[in-house]
């Protein structure tokens, strides 16, 4: 779940690659009759040769290194699809600009040669400019485009949306910084107890300190060099890789499930602790340089739920301490903060999705509340199979609508 500004989520690469393979298969064998060829590459365009004209909101864009041909220069307001096929040699982009030619209304980037990608978006009546940018640079090949009034309900103005996105970014950035500061402080407290041999105290502090990490886990993981140093599980080690970070200390504090475990020496405790503190400080230093777009916040929330589904609900994350429910709670809390920031935006665009996600968050949190014990939670081994299944169902119930959040707010 990488969320850095520089890299896109890995999943976004998956489809174009597959499309490319299928598209080239068709080209090589020249068998347009094969369903696998026609339906994959051109869903909305012209596999029957006539559908493009049948729906005035489904447009095609033939982009080459020197041309940008649209199947129409206007469309009725509503949800419009531009299926952009790159027939050139260069990687291209397609933009829909506002009348001023500066404000981007919609864009689709990174269209490799031979690939068709879609821009699906709601557009309001008005005058626009379209642009293909072969080579991804310059002003591109521009042309006027108009959208007529179709009487369909329109979303809030783009200006106020931009304000809401900015607000969401600021809120989320503040949250990430705040959690990182707490993480630094709690890590210091934890290692102080651990180094001093106050193991009971350290065991009590461990899951609480880690909650600050888990709340911002998708952000923390975006630092590919720090994440393995801080949060690697023993089962994930590569041959020869040195095991450091939280889970190394976890095993030392809870060796009961380990066979023939050799406890760390006092010097080793100090060394591993100092390493943890140092890497956490490095995380802290880098975090303020981040900022988040609406889809990054949304995908971060979904990513946190993915973390729950793959590591926490299965009891794998905290193998030695069995404190998975602390992590679980923190992942959900972090996801909720991201969602809350985007809520005003979502409320305008998809109120049904907003209330659905809200209700499903409440269900998960209520189930977690039922597992509280003292200041914390039951350990994972105290959960019955039925309770785990119920938690898993609730996570699925939340994850499914949450996976639609990003598309709804961009």
């Amino acid at each position, binding site marked *: 779940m990488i969320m850095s500004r520089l890299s896109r989520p890995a999943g*976004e690469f998956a*489809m174009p690659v597959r*499309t490319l393979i299928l598209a080239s298969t068709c080209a090589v064998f020249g068998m347009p009759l*094969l*369903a*696998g*060829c026609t*339906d*994959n590459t051109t*869903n*909305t*365009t012209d*596999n029957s040769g006539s*559908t*493009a004209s*049948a*729906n005035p909101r*489904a447009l095609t864009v033939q982009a080459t290194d020197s041309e940008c041909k649209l199947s129409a220069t206007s469309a009725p307001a509503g949800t419009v*699809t531009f299926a952009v096929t790159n027939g050139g040699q260069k990687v291209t982009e397609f933009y829909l600009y506002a009348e001023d030619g500066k404000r981007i209304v919609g864009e*689709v980037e990174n269209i490799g040669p031979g690939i068709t*990608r*879609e*821009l*699906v*978006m709601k557009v309001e009546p008005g005058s626009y400019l379209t642009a293909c940018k072969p080579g991804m640079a310059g002003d591109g090949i521009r042309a006027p485009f108009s959208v007529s009034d179709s009487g369909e309900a329109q979303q809030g103005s783009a200006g106020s949306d931009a304000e809401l996105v900015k607000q969401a970014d600021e809120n989320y950035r503040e949250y990430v910084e705040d959690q990182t500061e707490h993480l630094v402080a709690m890590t210091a407290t934890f290692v102080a107890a651990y180094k001093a041999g106050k193991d009971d105290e350290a065991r009590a502090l461990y899951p609480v300190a880690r909650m600050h990490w888990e709340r911002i886990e998708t952000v923390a993981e975006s630092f590919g060099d720090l994440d393995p140093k801080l949060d690697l599980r023993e089962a994930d080690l590569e041959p020869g890789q040195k095991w450091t970070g939280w889970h190394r200390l976890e095993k030392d504090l809870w060796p009961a499930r380990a066979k023939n475990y050799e406890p760390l020496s006092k010097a080793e405790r100090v060394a591993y602790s100092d390493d943890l503190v140092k890497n956490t400080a490095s995380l802290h230093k880098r975090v303020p340089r981040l900022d988040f777009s609406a*889809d990054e916040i949304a995908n971060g929330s979904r990513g946190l739920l993915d973390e729950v589904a793959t590591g926490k609900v299965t009891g794998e994350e905290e193998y030695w301490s069995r404190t998975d429910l602390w992590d679980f709670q923190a992942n959900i809390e972090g996801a909720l903060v991201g969602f809350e920031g985007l809520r005003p935006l979502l409320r305008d665009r998809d109120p049904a999705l907003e209330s659905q996600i809200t209700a*499903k968050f409440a269900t998960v949190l209520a189930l977690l509340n039922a597992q509280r014990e003292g200041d914390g939670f039951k350990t994972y081994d105290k959960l019955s199979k039925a309770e785990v*299944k*119920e938690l*898993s*169902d609730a996570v*699925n*119930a*939340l*994850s*499914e*609508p949450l*996976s*639609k959040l*990003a*598309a*709804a707010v*961009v």
Partner: protein
Amino acid sequence: MTSTEYVRQQPTETEAPSPAPDPHKERAAVSRRGLLGAAGAGLAGLAAGAAGGFALGSAETTPSPQPAGTRTYPFYGEHQAGILTPVQDRLHFAAFDVITHSREELVQLLKDWTAAAARMTQGLGAGEVGPTSGPYAAPPDDTGEAIGLPAAGLTITFGFGPTLFRKQGKDRFGLADRQPDALHRLPHFPADKLDPQRSDGDLCVQACADDPQVAVHAVRNLARIAFGRASLRWSQLGFGRTSSTSTSQATSRNLMGFKDGTMNLKAEDPAAIDAHVWAPADADNKGRWLAGGSYLVVRRINMTVETWDRQPLSEQERVIGRTKAEGAPLSGGSEFSQPDFHLKGNDGEPLVATDAHVRLVHPSNNGGAKMLRRGYNFVDGSDGLGRLDAGLFFLAYVRDPRTQFIPIQMKLGLGDGLSEYVQHTGSALFAIPPGIAQGEHVGQALFS
């Protein structure tokens, strides 16, 4: 069809089941290889099997051959598809627990399932947008593994378990007064060793197709649509049919190597189907909504195939009561001859043994009871002791399980020679609502 609609493959016109060989004629000429082809070992196998059929069958009634994979069956109709439909080669069966407490959400789920099933059975995607379309920032509304695959004769059949009506005495959705008298958990049968994780369920989905990926795609997408409302309880893959529901189909074999379902009810005998399969309107007041529907008995029957394979041919045939080669009753004749249970051999014992499977289940020994069987062979890997986790996933549609399945199974559990080689590890009973009309959702009569 809107331009954004995703088409896996243009559905062909609905057709009658493709003409298959006359089983009587085919039998004389087939080798084991030929049978495998007819049972459909993949698309190529299907095509080969069909072609073989044309050659052997009656040429004058045979239209030009069409790849079996492009076959589609109508989703809407008087009865649900997937019951009388000639049994497809592959199965993915799934049972769900309803996790919402809201009747409204349950009904919406059934509406969503109906819409998705209506689409998928015609070779379309689960959603309207498609697996590689729609907003780039959103997950697609279809999972995509069926891209490029035809409908492959997919049918999706829905059912309601007893626990949907009442669970631990609680009327969950205001349906308790509509729970038919026949819809209760099956009783414990002698020698049952049921795994709760392979048994029961509030809802069921039977997806059958001639391509395994098409069947799996259907269940996977329905499970996805259900998240938050119903949760997958268990599911079962079946890789080869063990029954035929049409005289156009050859009798297939189960993992014991014997022909299975020779005596099965066939779609071509509507009087028998009416008498044994469709639930009547006047069965009981609570079950009026089920008129035109049926009951589905589900049993996961493990076979200790390794032990079975060590039995002499004489023992194997004695236990079944039929010949292994042709499936003829041991009293003589050919596959479709009726067994003579009185005919004795030179030792004075009946040729069809007193504990032979065919004797115990024969309608003449069960008050005329017959079932429409639609089972599948399964192999779920191995058991860690070097043995296959294999057997028969038994599916049978009946008008009333209390007269057609329960007494027969009670008898089998006690005295069947076969029970030494099988173990029932899963069990469920579902009411299968009648067919769905355009604009309606599955089970609409139950909720109105």
